[in-house]
């Protein structure tokens, strides 16, 4: 079989701020290209994880191949590579984009440009992609496509007057997008006769087929039987099957050649042999040098992840290993806690990434987890000259050994409508932000620039931002560096026992306030016991706050007759289930969610 004509291939991504309609447009493209009938369409074909569907966001990069008959009468192969929209997932966006030749930028006709619109466009331009804009949601009453087009030209500098104005929801003008993809996105320019050079942009583990590698062939060809070599890990394997991505399914084909996007299964036993960003070549005819790959991302947020049932430690380790396979940004290493037993300290790109990994572990791997308060990496300069990188607060050395501490700071851009500028400035000040400047994008919108300590962002900053701006503010940030800071470790004692998993590091000025709120929160979370339970916050040996959980006085069903029995028994069962979700520490049972309490301190 001859290689497919590269000039008829278009490899592209859709990029957008969250909720601007990326997934909906992807659905329409799949629908319009006739790959599926309307009846077969699940509401959002690309988002095939339950979790994605519920949250309405795309977590994992995925790909789909469709065939489009253009107005010029030719058939084009579209490889649509999906990207996540959230700021936490820049890394994944980056690896998706590396497999593309162009990108469709979706902008909401009512909301206009948001923080992540900019972040994603810059990322695409970094990868030398051709980007063209599409203005979506023009059916909304508040849509103002002219304003948004002008904004795109002013702020991003992309030609936008002829940008397709569409409603992905209703399908209006989506044909214009398809034509624009053919005309504006360049065809791949690989050499099918050169040695194989193939980029791994994703992978997943299937219990029947083993590791499935998602790749973009840059040069050469790969087919069943090809002996392949992974240039970074050094692993070798023989190809079992190649194919491309149908909607929600893998469709085998004979050969993948230069310019094509598809998958490879091979006799790959160990998930660690295929790292995303690695280059696959032909062992017998290797290419001269590997592709640049991706810049290695660093975890910004750490937390302890423990199995609720200690016996599941091995299962948790296996699950983390498999998740890391297609999420190289996930870091983990074993740790132990007095309160929680054996578990892992995991590193994440951000708080959303943390939550998603936690939920995937719970849902896809059926694990019941306890997670501790998130932390950033603190640099501790000890008096003896040693420098420690601290990711777990309970490992903090005695204050007498510490010379000074440093914490990570980020430069943040917050895009907000002008009426909420005041509220957001107050928020940033409360979070020790340093004001850097403000620019008006137009009369009603501004970009606020702040330098913020990362540990002020990881707890509940997103929620606070949204609630104080009625959802109109958006945030993008990047790590700027470290600064010296007055930090203390806050310990929590429950019934006079120190709970290592509840310790957290906080700026000295807010220690009292946080300690008090933490005690109040824990008082709500810890159920009444047979005895009174003091909850205390302490810095070193000094108690700075205290609350008391009163002893249980009354928990009784007054009535239980023939018709009540089944219902009342369910009630008791629920109570028992509640007990099971608790951690016994000393005499006290602490609900597992209490270990995340620190995240909710700003809730009123």
């Amino acid at each position, binding site marked *: 079989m001859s290689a497919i004509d590269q000039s008829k291939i278009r490899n592209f991504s859709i990029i957008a701020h969250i909720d601007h309609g990326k997934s909906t447009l992807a659905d329409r493209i799949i629908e319009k290209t006739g790959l599926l009938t309307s009846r077969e369409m699940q509401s959002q074909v690309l988002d095939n994880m339950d979790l994605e569907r519920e949250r309405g966001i795309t977590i994992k990069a995925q790909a789909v191949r469709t065939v489009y008959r253009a107005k010029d009468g030719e058939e084009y192969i579209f490889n649509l590579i999906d990207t996540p929209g959230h700021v936490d997932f820049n890394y994944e966006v980056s690896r998706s984009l590396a497999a593309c030749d162009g990108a469709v930028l979706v902008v909401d006709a009512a909301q206009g440009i948001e923080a992540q619109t900019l972040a994603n466009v810059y990322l695409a331009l970094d990868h030398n992609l051709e980007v063209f804009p599409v203005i979506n949601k023009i059916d909304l009453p508040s849509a103002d496509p002219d304003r948004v087009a002008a904004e795109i030209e002013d702020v991003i500098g992309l030609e936008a007057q002829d940008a397709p104005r569409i409603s992905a929801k209703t399908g209006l003008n989506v044909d214009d997008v398809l034509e624009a993809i053919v005309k504006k996105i360049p065809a791949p320019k690989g050499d099918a006769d050169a040695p194989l050079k193939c980029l791994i942009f994703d992978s997943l583990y299937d219990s029947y087929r083993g590791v499935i590698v998602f790749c973009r062939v840059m040069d050469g060809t790969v087919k069943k039987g090809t002996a392949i070599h992974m240039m970074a890990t050094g692993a070798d394997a023989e190809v079992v099957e190649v194919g491309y991505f149908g909607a929600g399914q893998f469709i085998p084909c004979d050969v993948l050649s230069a310019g094509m996007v598809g998958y490879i299964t091979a006799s790959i036993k160990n998930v660690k042999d295929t790292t995303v960003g690695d280059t696959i070549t032909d062992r017998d005819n290797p290419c001269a040098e590997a592709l640049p790959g991706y810049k290695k991302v660093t975890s910004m947020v750490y937390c302890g992840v423990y199995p609720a049932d200690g016996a599941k430690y091995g299962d948790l380790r296996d699950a983390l290993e498999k998740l890391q396979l297609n999420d190289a940004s996930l870091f983990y290493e074993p740790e132990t806690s007095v309160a929680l037993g054996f578990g892992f300290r995991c590193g994440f790109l951000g708080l959303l990434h943390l939550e998603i990994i936690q939920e995937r572990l719970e849902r896809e791997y059926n694990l019941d987890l306890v997670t501790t308060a998130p932390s950033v990496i603190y640099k501790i300069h000890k008096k003896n000259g040693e420098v420690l990188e601290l990711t777990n607060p309970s490992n903090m050395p005695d204050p007498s050994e510490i010379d000074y501490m440093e914490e990570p700071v980020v430069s943040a851009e917050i895009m907000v409508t002008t009426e909420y500028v005041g509220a957001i400035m107050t928020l940033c000040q409360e979070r020790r932000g340093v004001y850097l400047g403000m620019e008006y994008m137009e009369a009603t919108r501004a970009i606020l620039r702040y330098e913020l300590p990362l540990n002020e962002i990881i707890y509940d900053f997103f929620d606070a931002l949204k609630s104080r701006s009625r959802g109109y503010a958006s945030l993008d940030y990047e790590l700027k560096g470290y600064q010296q800071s007055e930090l203390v470790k806050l310990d929590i004692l429950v019934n006079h026992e120190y709970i290592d998993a509840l310790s957290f590091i906080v700026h000295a000025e807010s220690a009292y306030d946080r300690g008090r709120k933490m005690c109040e929160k824990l008082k709500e979370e810890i159920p009444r016991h047979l005895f009174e339970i003091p909850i205390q916050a302490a810095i070193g040996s000094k108690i700075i706050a205290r609350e008391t959980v009163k002893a249980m006085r*009354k*928990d*009784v069903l007054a009535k*239980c007759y*023939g018709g009540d029995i089944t219902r009342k028994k369910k009630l008791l069962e629920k*109570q*028992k289930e509640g007990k099971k979700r608790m951690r016994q520490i000393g005499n006290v049972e602490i609900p597992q969610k209490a270990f995340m309490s620190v995240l909710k301190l700003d809730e009123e």
Partner: protein
Amino acid sequence: MRRPLELYIHIPFCARKCLYCDFLSQTASEMVCHGYVEQLLEEIGCQSGYYQGYEVVTIYIGGGTPSILKAEDIQAVMEAVKKNFRVDRGAEITIEANPGTVSREKLEAYLDCGINRISLGLQSADDRELKTLGRIHTFDEFLKTYQRVREAGFHNVNVDLMSALPGQTLSSWRSTMKKVTMMKPEHISAYSLMIEEGTLFYEMYHDHPELLPTEEEDREIYYASKAFLREQGYERYEISNYARPGFECRHNIGYWTGVEYLGLGLGASSYIQNFRFSNEADLETYRKINMRGEDADQRLHQNISELSQREQMEEFMILGLRMSRGVSGSEFIRRFGLNMWNVYGDALHRLQENRLIEVESPWVRLTDFGVDISNYVLSEFLFDREPD
């Protein structure tokens, strides 16, 4: 010997829905009530076929307010029961009634058809509290009804009371108890108010616990009741039930000790040969069931579940421990062929250490503190669920 069976007959109608009530009841026209009774008679006739090996030992006509039905309707129901089931001569037969809904004629008709126990819903002797609850009667009206009940010749009367009401104090509660015990009913049920979802009280008080007596006050009232009623000759035999010796409600004791019972009428629950099930609970749907049809059982009986031996053991404990006498280890062995202390040793020892239960072989019972937090205690007797 025939197996003992209890009958529960549900009358889902009321003069007015009380604000705290989450029972299956509604107001209805005379015509709807009558149509319901017709269907109930059909059900009695058709279902009784399965129970020929049984002897009915107690009957309980509950609601709603059964006494709002016409006397003839109650008589017809009783006649149908007696015609279709074998009813023990000494059976305890109770009807629930609310003050203001029973005339002398009705009471005589009840006695005529074999009803020998009446349960009156008083709730409080304080008219302000009655109003808060949304009751349709005053204390004075209760007194008249009570007198009528005695004059008609009822020798076994229960009075229902409620404590921990919004605005209730220990002294208003004492006054209610004094007034009621002066009347010398044989039996008193005293329930601590539960705020149930789906009631008006839930809307009013769920987010405003400060309007209700505190847990401490509630317990104070509870202990005061026990002490005061004991002085007056009433022993507490279940968490919320008190009686003069010999007048404990046999029907209700059956629920707590695993006696089989058949529920008849809308939404009524049954426990037959280790199966729990309940009747269709929608009035319209219930009324449309052809009781003689082949699929009558299927349409009538819902939520059918068979109890495994573990579930039977759980129920033995969580229901039996509601009784003041507790559960008996000997009975446990007789019933399940297993030793209670082997099956529940851990829980029993733990609870005993915490003084939540006390042991007087072969009996195990809740202590006063155990009663206060009985949900906590009883949940200890549930086994871990098998993973699905």
